[in-house]
Structure formats: structure tokens, C-alpha cells
């Protein structure tokens, strides 16, 4: 970071991410036990300032940090049939949905947006682990496809931030069908010659890993993210032995040739800009936090919406 970012970042943050983050609340880092003020944590994109533990971050908070000036436009997602299987376990699926919507202020587990990142136009999608474990159902599939279609329309790269406990079990086979559906979208992107970058965040598991999260042109993961098809507990039950330290974590996958890079969350933006500009044949970027593009009146500040503060959790369940 140079002087521009040191100067600009606090200003931007004070405008967009701090607004409804109370100063007097703190969270305990579950890795190192350090007490962190919410503001301090939000300024560091929910990464522990003491031990670099990457906590969950909502799509909105991520986009606020990713897009220039924290400004982005949401891409509309086609509606889906609610509760298509009339699924009921211990609770009714619509009740679980309502609770998740109320808790997160979001429609479902993926947010899609367009905007500029380091003056580089992109379309991005991010999965919301706080919404039913980021699980992939029909809405998530539609969101992914809508993002890809918008990227093709605008001739922009598509950047996917994955986070999911797997498939949305309450949508049964229809959640499984999102594996081929999202893969069709990736094929469309490929035929349009547009880059598809995946950033795998903690945790990315099951059918999500086994479809769009593993098909990127470039595969980047956040440090220590759990990335797997079958979870460690399932494997331990199957093979009846203890798994090695760090098994299925980002660094382990990097060692085993499954990823291109493992990158700290606060360095992701610069890295994505660098890669995308090279893939797009653009000149090098000015490395800095740039203010929002001025000549785009249609862009709205995300803070107009209800819940902008990053959701900070002290217990992260994979």
C-alpha cells in the first residue's frame, strides 16, 4: 500500500463501512482469543489484526471493500419457485428461509454485483455463509447464471467468491441440478473469452466445490479456508483414522496442486486487479484505493440499503 491508499482508505471506510458499526462492541477471535473492536475488525475486512484469522464476511461488506469507493450495482436475479418440494424436516423450509432472511437482510445466499475494481470493470458474485451456510439452491444457481450473463453482456470478467456448506438440502435434487446449471454458465463465459476467477473462502465444500468453485481460469483461496468435497468428519468416519494437521485447508490444497494461490483477504483486490488486467491486455493499474467512478450516476451507494455492517461472528461453524 502506498500513501494514496493510506490516505484514501480511512476516508472511504468512514463513508461506507463504518456507518452503522458501533464503536463500543468487540468480538473475540476464536483462533487467538484477542478482543477486537468491531470497527477495527471491519476496517480489516473481518481479518483478525493479531493472528490474521479470516472470519466470515458478508457479500455486501466484501463488495464494499472490493469495488472502488465501495460502490457497486446489484445484478437482478430471476425469481425462483419458493419451497419447490414442500420440504419439511424438523422445521418447514419456508420458516428457515424467513429466519435467514430476517437475520441477514438478504434474499438468499448469493449476491451479484457489477462495478469497478481498481478502475477495472467486473461482475462479481459472493456467497453468504451466514445465510443457511451459503448453501446452493435454485436461487444461488440463478444468481450465478445471472452474473455470468451480465458479464457476457458487458464483456467483463466474472469473479466468484465461494463459501458454502454444500447443497441446499431442502431443495433436494433441484439443488443438485445447480451443478450442471452453473457449469453451463461457465461454458458460456469461456466461449465469450472472458476470464472466470474463483476466490475460495472458508468453507467451500460439497457440490459447490465439485462444480463452479473448481472450474476457474485462476483459482485463489483465502488463508486456512477449508476446501473439500467430503468434509473431514465424513472422511474420518469412513477411513477410521485421524487426518493430518491442515488437511483440506487452502495451503494443503496449494501444496497438492489444486490451487494457483493462497492470498490474504486484504491483498485480494490488488491481486485480482493485477491478474485481470493482464488477462484483459490492459495497462498496469495504479495501485491505490480509488474513489468511486464519477460519471456513473446509475451507481448507488450500498449504504442506502438496510444492513451494511459486516456481520461479525465469534464462532464459525464449518
Amino acid at each position, binding site marked *: 500500500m502506498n500513501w494514496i491508499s493510506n490516505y484514501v482508505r480511512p476516508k472511504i471506510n468512514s463513508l461506507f463501512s463504518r456507518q452503522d458499526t458501533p464503536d463500543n462492541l468487540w468480538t473475540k477471535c476464536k483462533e487467538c482469543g484477542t478482543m477486537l473492536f468491531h470497527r477495527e475488525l471491519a476496517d480489516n475486512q473481518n481479518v483478525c489484526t493479531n493472528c490474521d484469522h479470516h472470519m466470515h464476511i458478508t457479500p455486501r461488506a466484501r463488495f464494499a471493500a472490493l469495488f472502488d469507493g465501495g460502490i457497486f450495482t446489484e445484478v437482478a436475479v430471476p425469481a425462483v*419457485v419458493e419451497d419447490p418440494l414442500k420440504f419439511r424436516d424438523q422445521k418447514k423450509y419456508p420458516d428457515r428461509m424467513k429466519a435467514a432472511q430476517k437475520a441477514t437482510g438478504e434474499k438468499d445466499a448469493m449476491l451479484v454485483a457489477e462495478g469497478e475494481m481498481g478502475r477495472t470493470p467486473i461482475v462479481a458474485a459472493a456467497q453468504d455463509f451466514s445465510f443457511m451456510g451459503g448453501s446452493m439452491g435454485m436461487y444461488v444457481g440463478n444468481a450465478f447464471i445471472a452474473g455470468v450473463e451480465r458479464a457476457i453482456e458487458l464483456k467483463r470478467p466474472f469473479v466468484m467468491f465461494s463459501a458454502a456448506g454444500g447443497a441446499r438440502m431442502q431443495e433436494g435434487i*433441484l439443488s443438485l441440478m445447480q451443478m*450442471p446449471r452453473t*457449469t453451463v454458465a461457465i461454458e458460456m463465459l469461456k466461449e465469450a473469452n472472458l476470464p472466470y476467477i474463483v476466490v475460495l473462502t472458508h468453507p467451500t465444500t460439497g457440490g459447490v466445490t465439485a462444480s463452479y468453485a473448481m472450474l476457474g481460469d485462476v483459482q485463489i483461496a483465502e488463508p486456512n479456508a477449508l476446501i473439500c468435497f*467430503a468434509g473431514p468428519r465424513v472422511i474420518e468416519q469412513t477411513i477410521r483414522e485421524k487426518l493430518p494437521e491442515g488437511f483440506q485447508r487452502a495451503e494443503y490444497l496449494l501444496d497438492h496442486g489444486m490451487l494457483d494461490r493462497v492470498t490474504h483477504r486484504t491483498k485480494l483486490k490488488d491481486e485480482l486487479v493485477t491478474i485481470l488486467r493482464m488477462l484483459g491486455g490492459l495497462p498496469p493499474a495504479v495501485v491505490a484505493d480509488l474513489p468511486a467512478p464519477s460519471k456513473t450516476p446509475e451507481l448507488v451507494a450500498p449504504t442506502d440499503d438496510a444492513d451494511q455492517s459486516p456481520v461479525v461472528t465469534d464462532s464459525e461453524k464449518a
Partner: protein
Amino acid sequence: MTHYLEFEKPLAEIEGKAEELRAMARANEDMDVEKEALALDAKAEAMLVDMYKTLTPWRKCQVARHPDRPHCAEYIEALFTEYTPLAGDRNFADDHAIMGGLARFNDQPVMVIGHEKGNDTKSRIERNFGMARPEGYRKAVRLMELADKFGIPVIALVDTPGAYPGKGAEERGQSEAIARSTQKCLQLSVPLIAVIIGEGGSGGAVAFAAANKVAMLEHSIYSVITPEGCASILWKDAGKMREAAEAMRLTAQELKELAVIDHIIAEPLGGAQRDREATIASVGKAIADLLAPLSNQTPENLVKSRRKKFLDIGSKGLAA
């Protein structure tokens, strides 16, 4: 010897009695038991009709997993000629959970790929119960590419509880291997037909079933997770698999209604295990019927219509 499922116990008793009577008659020439035995046969058949008319989803799961159900190897043996297995992923190993190779189907060259579960302890272990590792999916990708290169249709026989959840499988990129196999299905410029002959378990099944036409045997299942797995996650109790099986909509009939599959292949009375030959013949007929109209399509259209088919899932067949 017939292998009875738990819910078939009353049937086992009646059929057992009929068999006992006949055995006694064979030992004793003076005995005439035929009338009684025939009455028992009739009773058994009526019970079988009744039982299989209204199989609950959980019972369907049991039938789909029946050890005597015909498996991939038997279909290949009976329906194809000149089967020439092709092995290996050229990177690591040959996965015996996945069979595949060139063969002729009604004289036409095809590539056949499928999960094989094995049928005794030794072969089940060798086949890893039909649970493939990354090298299995990578072998399938290789075979699909070969078929694509020479314009040969691909026929996939799906029968797997799911991809293998093991240490080595994860290290070698199970997720990536499944994702690439699904992707390859969606890239093929030749016809791809998938038949779910037993269990269509999760991503391990989708990896072969992103096909132009997907058919299911009448009592096979296709699901995002096993009912036991679903029960342990959502009910926190694997014993609630009956409830989970009901809720998940994993039967061929329900999946046809949801427009996820295209065709249901009828099974003989009492399930595929009661008449394997007839079942295999029905599957052969279904493959021929599904393949014929695809053979006239252009390569571009095969790709396009396959993609559209999946993009459209969820937009029809669902009650609002």
C-alpha cells in the same frame, strides 16, 4: 436363493412355504401338493403386486440398492458386443469403480461408461462399492473426449452411492475431478444418454448424468445426498432416513414430475432383481429409443439442447 428385503418378509414366508411343499413332494411321490402350492403362488403374487404398487420412497431406496439388481457389468455384457475396456486416467491409476470402453450397441460403435458396485465381497472391495475416486472421473473424461473426437455416442450407466469420501481422493482433487466430468458431459458434440439403473448418488452421479436424455429405472433413486446423510444433517439422526427419503423427492416418478429426468423404464413385478434379463432388455430398448432421434441432430444442436435442458430445470414442472 432369493435375497428378501426387510419389508418383503411376509412374502418370503409364503414363497418359502410353497417351496417347502414342493420339496416334500419331490421326496415323496405319493404326495400331491401342486394345488396348495399354486394357491400359495397366487397369494404371493397378489402380495407382490400390492407391495410394489405403493412402494414408499424408503422402500424404493432399498430396492434400488438390492444386491441382486443387475449391475453395470451385466448390462454391458448383455446389451453390447465387442466391448473393449479402456483403462486409466494417464495420471495416477485405473479406478475399478468406473467401467468403460468402446463397444457396439446394435452394431453402432458407442462409448459406454458406468459405475460398477460389484456383487460379492471380493468384487465389492475391488470396485470400492461403486464409489469412484478422482482417477475414475478423469478416466471418464478421457473416454468422453475420445468418443467426441470420433463422433461416437456416449452411454452412461449410473449406479453409485456417491463419490468416495477418502483421504487420497480429496488430496488428488475429488471436487475438481467431478466438476471436470460434469463439464465434459456438457461439452460433448455427440449424443450422451444416461440411465440411472440403481442409485444416483449426488455429484458422483451428476458427473455422468449431465446428458441429453436421462432415464431412470422404475425403482431407482437419484438424490443430492443419501437419505441417511440428509437425516443426520437435518434431523440430527441418521435413523430418520424414512422421513428424509419422503421429503427429498428421490424417486423416478417424482423426478419425472419435476422435469429433472426424461423417461422412466418399467421394471418387472417385484423389482429388477426378480427378472434381471427382462430388466436389462427394457433398458436396452430404452437406450435405442432415446438414441435414435439424437442421431439426426447436428453436433451444435446436441450441445445447445443439452445446455438448454439444464438451464430450464426449475422453470417448469414446479408448483408455484
